[in-house]
């Protein structure tokens, strides 16, 4: 019982309680199922806040640890080890925060096999939280692979017309990367004698050439997940086919697993290799930023546009992270959260209109701001957040990232930051293009079409507004007063930077 009462265990496994309850509810009682799932997710958010209240933000180390020896044979020491520090606390909160929102968004969108959906969704939450909390490589790997499974089903069962292709592609791409990571994990376990991340960090001393190989192996897994250019080809498929809630979680949290992995493992475990790889990563990140933005612009499907924009946004995160200075990394972490909030909100909103019109083709829309003013206004705010308007969350992240990259000693040149800053212009182009073609201009033909089917295109209802409101609060909060968030991150990042300061000087 004590085990379960430890905050991190509780927050990780509480959704399973919801799953258990769901199993005893008849599939026909759809609303009961929805409420139970939502309740579970909300309570879990509460639990994560409780954990936050116990988190000491001035302490750079892992905290609230729940550490038990788990598999201990033949000198192999695998632990059950959950703990949280400044690098992961925000991501944990993001996960517990987005899950109820995503569930709320399915209220009317998912009518088929609701129970299964909710079961998978809550299981997905368990997996994601585990990924962010696990401090033992083996445990991490298990959670990492585990997240694949519910997402695979979410796409495969509730997805769009091309869902099979998308689900399998998603699964195989991700697995292809993670399987290389498994090798690297094993190498570490074999040669360093432990799977515990903090112990490995303390121990260090991996020869530089080996570090590079290990770095690449880990990076393969994470780069696909992020996804970094040119490994992003699964993303648009997965996003376009996934149900709205799936896209929200996919963009909001699952992609962060990749960037988080870079942060937690590649940077912490292989500092020398990270320094060596930084320019290469920066090149890829910059290409991703520009490419993603360019490709987004020419999309005809609004969901695809948002999906490609993720490539661009996550490029910023990678760029900041490998700037290997405080601004870059803290900005990257914050940008992970920002992307979760704004892209999550974008997907939610695309889903809301899709539910009514059943089309995502940008060209058929137009003038929506006139017809659905609340929807239009909220979309505008979210779009501006996504393109990094100062005063909203996106800017704080992007700015610190670019600032960090500009003066990065790891890059040695500001050219990456300069090129990436062009991405900020391109972001304005595609976001405004989307906003203009859908919300401005004369009223599009879809309005007539919907009318033709006997409906009236309606503005957001109360539930939808409630779904979006929490996101908007954070969009403004982080944009105007990000200090509480930076304060959570900063000590851990300072600690993370110690080896890099030693290598790079300063």
């Amino acid at each position, binding site marked *: 019982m004590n085990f379960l009462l430890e905050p991190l265990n509780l927050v990780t496994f509480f959704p399973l309680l919801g799953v258990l309850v769901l199993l005893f509810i008849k599939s026909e009682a759809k609303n009961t199922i929805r409420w139970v799932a939502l309740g579970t997710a909300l309570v879990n958010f509460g639990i994560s806040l409780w954990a936050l209240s116990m988190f000491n933000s001035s302490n750079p180390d892992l905290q609230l640890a729940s550490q038990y020896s788990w598999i201990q044979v033949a000198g192999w020491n695998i632990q059950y080890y959950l703990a949280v520090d400044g690098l992961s606390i925000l991501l944990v909160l993001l996960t517990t925060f987005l899950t109820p929102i995503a569930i709320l968004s399915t209220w009317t969108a998912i009518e088929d096999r609701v129970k299964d959906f909710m079961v998978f969704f809550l299981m997905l939450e368990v997996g994601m939280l585990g990924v962010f909390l696990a401090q033992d490589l083996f445990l991490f790997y298990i959670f990492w692979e585990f997240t694949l499974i519910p997402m695979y089903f979410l796409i495969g069962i509730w997805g769009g017309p091309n869902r099979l292709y998308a689900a399998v*592609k998603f699964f195989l*791409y991700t697995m292809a990367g993670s399987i290389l990571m498994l090798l690297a994990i094993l190498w570490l376990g074999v040669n360093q004698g432990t799977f515990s991340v903090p112990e490995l960090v303390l121990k260090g001393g991996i020869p530089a050439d080996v570090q590079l190989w290990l770095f690449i192996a880990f990076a393969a897994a994470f780069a696909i997940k992020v996804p970094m250019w*040119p490994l*992003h*080809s699964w993303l648009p498929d997965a996003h376009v086919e996934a149900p709205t809630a799936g896209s929200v979680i996919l963009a909001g949290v699952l992609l962060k697993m990749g960037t988080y992995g870079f942060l937690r493992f590649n940077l912490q475990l292989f500092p020398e290799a990270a320094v060596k790889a930084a320019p290469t990563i920066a090149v890829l990140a910059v290409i991703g930023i520009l*490419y993603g933005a*360019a*490709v987004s*612009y*020419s*999309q005809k499907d609004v969901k695809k546009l948002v999906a490609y924009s993720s490539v661009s946004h996550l490029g910023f995160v990678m760029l900041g992270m490998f700037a290997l*200075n*405080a*601004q870059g990394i*803290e*900005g990257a972490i914050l940008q992970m959260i920002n992307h979760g909030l704004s892209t999550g909100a974008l997907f939610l909103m695309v889903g809301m209109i899709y539910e009514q019109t059943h089309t995502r083709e940008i060209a058929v829309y*137009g*003038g929506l*701001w*006139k017809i659905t003013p609340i929807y239009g206004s909220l979309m505008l705010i979210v779009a*501006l957040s996504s393109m990094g*308007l*100062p*005063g909203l969350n996106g*800017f*704080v992240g992007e*700015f*610190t990232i*670019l*600032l*960090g990259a*500009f*003066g990065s000693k790891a890059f040695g040149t*500001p050219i990456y*930051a*300069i090129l990436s*800053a*062009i991405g*900020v*212009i391109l972001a*304005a*182009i595609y976001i*405004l*293009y989307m906003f*203009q073609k859908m*919300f*401005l*201009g*004369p*009223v599009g033909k879809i309005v007539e079409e919907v009318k033709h089917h006997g409906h009236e295109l309606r503005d957001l209802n109360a539930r939808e507004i409630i779904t979006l409101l929490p996101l908007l609060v954070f969009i403004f909060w982080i944009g*105007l*007063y*990000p*200090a509480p968030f*930076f304060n959570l991150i*900063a000590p851990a990042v300072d600690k993370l930077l110690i080896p890099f300061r030693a290598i790079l000087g300063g």
Partner: protein
Amino acid sequence: MENTQLFFNFVPWIVFFPVLGLLLNLTIGKKLSENGIGAIAVLASASAFVVAVLQAYSLSIHPEGASILVAEWIHVGDLAIDWTFRVDTLSVTMMLVVSGVGTLIHIYAIGYMHEDVRFHNDEGRFKRFFVFLNLFIAMMMVLVSGDSYMMLFVGWEGVGLCSFLLIGFWYDFDTLGRPSFANSNAAKKAFITNRIGDFGFLLAAFMMFWQFKSTNFDNVFAVVANAEPWVILWITIFILVGVAGKSAQIPLYIWLPDAMAGPTPVSALIHAATMVTAGVYLVTRSAPIFMLSHDAQYIVATVGALTAIFAATIAVGQYDIKKVLAYSTISQLGFMVAAVGMGAFAAGMFHLITHAFFKALLFLSAGSVILGMERGHHHLAHHGHHGGKHDEEVFDPGDMRNMGGLRKQMPVTFWLYMVGTVALAGLFPFAGFWSKDEILADAFLEFPHVYWILTGAAFLTAFYMGRQVWMVFFGKPRHEVAAHAEESPLIMTAPLMVLAALSVFGGALNLPGVHTLTVWLEHTIDIHPGEFNMQVALISTALALFAIFLSWLLYMRKPLTTGQPDPLKRILGFAFTGMENKWFVDEAYKFVFIDRYTDLAKFFAQTVDWDFWHEWFHNSVIAAGFVGLTKFLANPIDLGIVDNISKILARSIQYSSENFRKVQNGFVRSYALSVMLGVVAIIGYLLIK
């Protein structure tokens, strides 16, 4: 500079009041009448003005100013950016201008929008306008009162957003009220062009941080003198890119003419009086940096000067009343930028202020003219004189060729417009004269080439304004609508009168010998009053008068008539036969200069600027090129090559799978053969080893 004396602590309210106003309108605006909404907005803006006045008062006692910390913003590593308001003579000057002119325009807009929403058949949008307008005031205040480059940048982008929202206010129409993407295109264009400028700004900020470890004004200026020349040069160039975007300088000015798609109060407030001058403010603010590099000053001054003359040439060829003013604004911004570029900060700021007065006046009066025309159009359509005809053809109330003789229909507006025109043309003793002359005097000493270019621009300014006035208000109505145009109500004309007064007496702010403004700004920037240069003053005045004379010559002596795009020729030809040498000179002038120049202006306006630069280059080369490139990237590369690698991989696995299958042919013999081969291989390997 922590100073909490007197009213300094109130300074954040300069932002909070407008925000409060917009929040009030957002929440309870639905229940209020138009006047109620307008009152809230005006009150919010006026309160900001009061705060600004209080700051000015405090400053007059404590000229060193204050920095008021509200909250910390981005603190990462050694980067520390706060929400800190800066009160010094420069920022308060801007606050006063923005909130003062802003409040007047708010009042005007109540009247203007009341009619505008009715012309567009969407009365629900009234509230939205004032929400945006208040938001703009708030953002502009953030811009001018920020204590660091980054807080300034918040306002910088924020006003860009407001500009976007307000240009695209009638987002579902074009300027003539037809359903179209045209207005929203203009809005988008403005935002994106501004973003290009912001790109430069950001890079400047990055560079400052990494060189000086801060983006705070005081911290940067404290150490900037130690920086290496190349650092200074690059920072200033990056800043210049930002300025070019926001203040519509070459080569980024192209958005501003389009921005006239917004309602006229917007054009007046944002695209003439305040937002577009943010670049001038930025350079002034960065004076300690710019003064360190002569090269930078040279570049900025030259860019400004070129913009001034280039825009002015274009303005001459325009027919739309607001377009002329728009190009004029660009040109005047060029003046300001040139001024601050060459270190004449006081002159630049002075011109900024006077320009805010008279250009706002001109725009609002132009708005009044357009509404007057609309009223006439409405009147005609209503009374069915030629109802059917007017319903079919699209009538452009902003086209000067449709106007003429309006001074009779709209006498108040006419006089107001005249004041603005004279001020802009720089005639003694109007505001524009003093400020423009100060710039020219400084240029004369610093950069002669700039001086000459600017003088040329000043000349053109007077010319195109003259042309406009003659075309709009004089002569006979060239369209029935113009004959039925109606004067605007008091709520619109009253603010204009205030502005007119300011345009007349604004020059008093910095009279030669007194230098009130310079002394005031000296507390903030290291400047010294310039000398009044009689020679320069005489030349410019003379040129302005000459230009007006020329315009009078061309457009007034024999006013245009309906349907005659170029009636001058006929008129001149008529005079040529009646007169001797004089007319010959006239014709020679016309042939050598005026026709050539009119052609040239047309060419610049239509072909170079519009068709080539605006339409072809931006739409075909840049826009189409970008679209083509993205399409190319999206289709063949993304779906083709990248995706195909995995597909090819998958296919080759599938293929080998099929081949492995074929080996498994069901024959026991082949199975045994496989075993045998394995045996041979293993034994062979063991033996050979």
